[in-house]
């Protein structure tokens, strides 16, 4: 009888380990393959590799389209992340603390951009920009400002959600304690409130950056003539070539985001906020 019980437990533990391994492999295998591919020597990827080389990485640096695309994506992502936080923090504070009739509709509205498909969002923003450009004669269509505004839209749901989550266990007495000790509301906000929700803010910044940096569908409608973000450059390149340059670009992207996560994790344990 005892043997049976042990057997069952062992079986369960094997099953769990097996399922976990398959899931992990499912997630990691594409990353492993793309990384492997980036070092292949031949221009047409085929197995087995004929040799290894770093030339595809140099090819990126020599291709101004990739370099420009990377810089644009980086600038847009940083701008969208910062502005998204500047909107997301007050919005989350307001949603978490005040009871007013528009609270729930407003909360849902702020989450909406992640529910709308990127293509739909891109199309509607494009049409909107056309109309506004015609009406105001301001150069909005295809401008960097227009592109950043679109990216802010997809960053906001993440910053609002993650900061709201970090406010859930917030003891408002600590703000009163600060004021009782002589801190004005402004000092209370910067010295007490912000540091306390720092994990949520860091997570929101990271997710906002990643979401913006990797966005393709919406950006395609918003970039102006002669400008491309990195994901668009990759797509355009793939239309004509399938050499491992794309794999090398992907490896660099994975490294960039991985580094961002590692740095973030040093300040706040990501497992605690996500």
């Amino acid at each position, binding site marked *: 009888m005892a043997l049976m019980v042990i057997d069952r437990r062992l079986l369960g533990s094997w099953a769990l380990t097996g399922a976990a391994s398959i899931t992990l492999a499912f997630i990691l295998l594409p990353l492993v393959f793309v990384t492997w591919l980036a070092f292949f020597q031949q221009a047409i990827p085929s197995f087995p590799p004929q040799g290894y080389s770093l030339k595809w990485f140099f090819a990126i640096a020599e291709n101004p389209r990739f370099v420009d695309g990377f810089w644009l994506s980086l600038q847009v992502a940083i701008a969208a992340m910062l502005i998204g936080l500047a909107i997301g923090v007050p919005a989350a504070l307001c949603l978490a603390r005040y009871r007013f009739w528009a609270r729930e509709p407003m909360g849902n509205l702020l989450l909406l951009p992640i529910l709308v498909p990127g293509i739909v969002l891109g199309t509607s923003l494009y049409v909107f920009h056309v109309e506004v450009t015609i009406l105001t004669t301001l150069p909005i269509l295809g401008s960097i400002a227009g592109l950043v505004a679109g990216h802010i839209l997809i960053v906001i749901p993440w910053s609002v959600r993650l900061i709201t989550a970090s406010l859930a266990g917030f003891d408002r007495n600590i703000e009163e304690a600060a*004021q009782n*000790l002589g801190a004005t509301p402004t*000092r209370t906000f910067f010295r*007490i409130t912000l540091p306390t929700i720092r994990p949520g803010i860091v997570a929101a910044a990271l997710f906002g950056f990643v979401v913006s940096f990797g966005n393709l569908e919406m950006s395609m409608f918003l970039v102006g003539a002669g400008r491309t973000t990195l994901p668009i450059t990759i797509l355009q390149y793939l239309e004509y070539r399938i050499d491992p340059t794309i794999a090398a670009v992907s490896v660099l992207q994975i490294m960039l985001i991985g580094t961002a996560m590692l740095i973030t994790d040093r300040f706040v344990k990501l497992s605690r906020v996500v």
Partner: protein
Amino acid sequence: MARLQIERLSKHFGPTVAVHEVSLDVRDGEFVVLLGPSGCGKTTTLRMIAGFIAPTNGRVRLGDDDITTLPPWKRNTGMVFQSYALFPHLTVVENVAFGLEMRNVAGAAVAERVAEALQMVRLAGLADRLPRQLSGGQQQRVALARSLVIRPDVLLLDEPLSNLDAKLREAVRVEIRELQRRLGITTVMVTHDQEEALIMADRLVVMSEGSVRQVGTQRDLYERPADRFVAGFVGRNNILTGRIVGPGWFETEGGLRIACAGSAPGHAAIAVRPERLALGPGVANFDNRLPGTVEFVSYLGASIDVHVRVSSAERMVISQPNRFDGLVPKEGDSIVVGWPSEAAVVLS
């Protein structure tokens, strides 16, 4: 340190009256406890003193200043919250130093005063810990040090002991009281725990439904309760309702005639403490002697509670000291309950 005066302070939340015309004069260095059941307005009153809630009517004076309309950060009050409200991202030292920093005290003086405050609450060794690394009792002492280090004019304690376990609570209440006496700091504490209130206060304010029912010392409240609420809330009491039927005579609703000292018009009540009642042969000299039947006996160790039915509508609890020669009545025994008329209080 200063005198705190509250004058006809009221707070209305829409149609509900949370606090109704509370007046209170706390002497310099006095320890006053606001006591009452939850929802009686005691915490709202304390928060109005701290400035977190703006009163609808009335004034708050601290020392020579009217602080009614001052924001919390301009009042020199030190508050200890029920949840302690320590800053989770700051160490013990940084928590305690916060108030001094806000007052722009110079660095060297900050270090000295923080060290002194931590010494005072016996936490000197834990200076660099974060709040989450401390036990509940230690967190409470950090909160206390943090509010004392700014040398507040008045110390406000909002149920400061309710999150501690029973053993610790007993030690800490004596500790806080001694510290308060040594510093001579004017203190207002809010609690619903009457034992805590009785042990710590110079004077107590009993509140119910937003109003002050009685202000007085422990003895005042226990011996001369102002009304039925105070009589029932502070300590235990046998409260018999009825009316005065003649000079010195009270008749209960159950039809018992009782000799009493004092008078009250109309519907009245008398209250007599369980330990002021006697049982059995010892009652011969008392002017009130009621025959009854023992219905329930609880053996509490130091004392024994005997519940005696004295009429179809009324039952009384008698608390007897557990002496070696005392009798322990049994359920079903016929017995006489007695007390001198002066032992009971007549309430309107």
